[in-house]
């Protein structure tokens, strides 16, 4: 079946512009996660959705970052007034249910470059 998809695959934007990154989870998966991977570093947790509510936003690095999820489907991560330090690969993952017993399946990521 179809896996997690993300769009765009690459995004180059000028400093100060807003960007929207999209994630389509595996159909039927109720939990959705956003992570960020800066060059040469591991993945950092950003936010987690159960359904369309976000019980854990602890990883969002600043108020320029926000995310929404429509029902148990697509999610968008928005970064306002982008800065160069926002350059990274943004990864989305989904799992069938909430809880660590359920494997997180990752998408291909969106590579964001802020110039």
């Amino acid at each position, binding site marked *: 079946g179809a896996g997690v998809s993300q769009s765009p695959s690459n995004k180059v934007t000028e400093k100060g512009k807003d960007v929207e990154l999209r994630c389509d989870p595996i159909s039927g998966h109720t939990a959705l996660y956003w992570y960020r991977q800066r060059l040469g570093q591991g*993945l950092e947790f950003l936010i987690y959705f159960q359904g369309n509510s976000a019980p854990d936003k*602890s990883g969002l690095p600043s108020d320029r970052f926000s995310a929404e999820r429509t029902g148990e489907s697509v999610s968008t991560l928005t970064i306002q007034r982008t800065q160069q330090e926002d350059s990274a690969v943004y990864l989305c993952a989904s799992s069938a249910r909430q809880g660590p017993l359920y494997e997180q399946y990752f998408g291909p990521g969106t590579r964001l470059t802020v110039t």
Partner: protein
Amino acid sequence: AQSVSQHNHHVILSEAASLELGCNYSYGGTVNLFWYVQYPGQHLQLLLKYFSGDPLVKGIKGFEAEFIKSKFSFNLRKPSVQWSDTAEYFCAVNARDRAAGNKLTFGGGTRVLVKP
């Protein structure tokens, strides 16, 4: 908060050599442990996981990992690597704590290059 460290950033070895990648975590409570792999041009995928029971877990493609609670370690091993094992490997933990939520905390990754 939990943290994960992977000791080697880059490993280069020849086919048929043995591989061991170190992973240590910092967290006072109970954790679930994972190794993920990202092959060139592919998505991150789960290699193996440990929740409880036998501390030696076996994953896909001949990989195994051993949880040593006293050392807060979860090292990944493969007795004989192949060229196709060239990839980046990430260790991750999930704290079994409601307050910690469901997030995975990742190490910085180890790039493994297997020379044919």
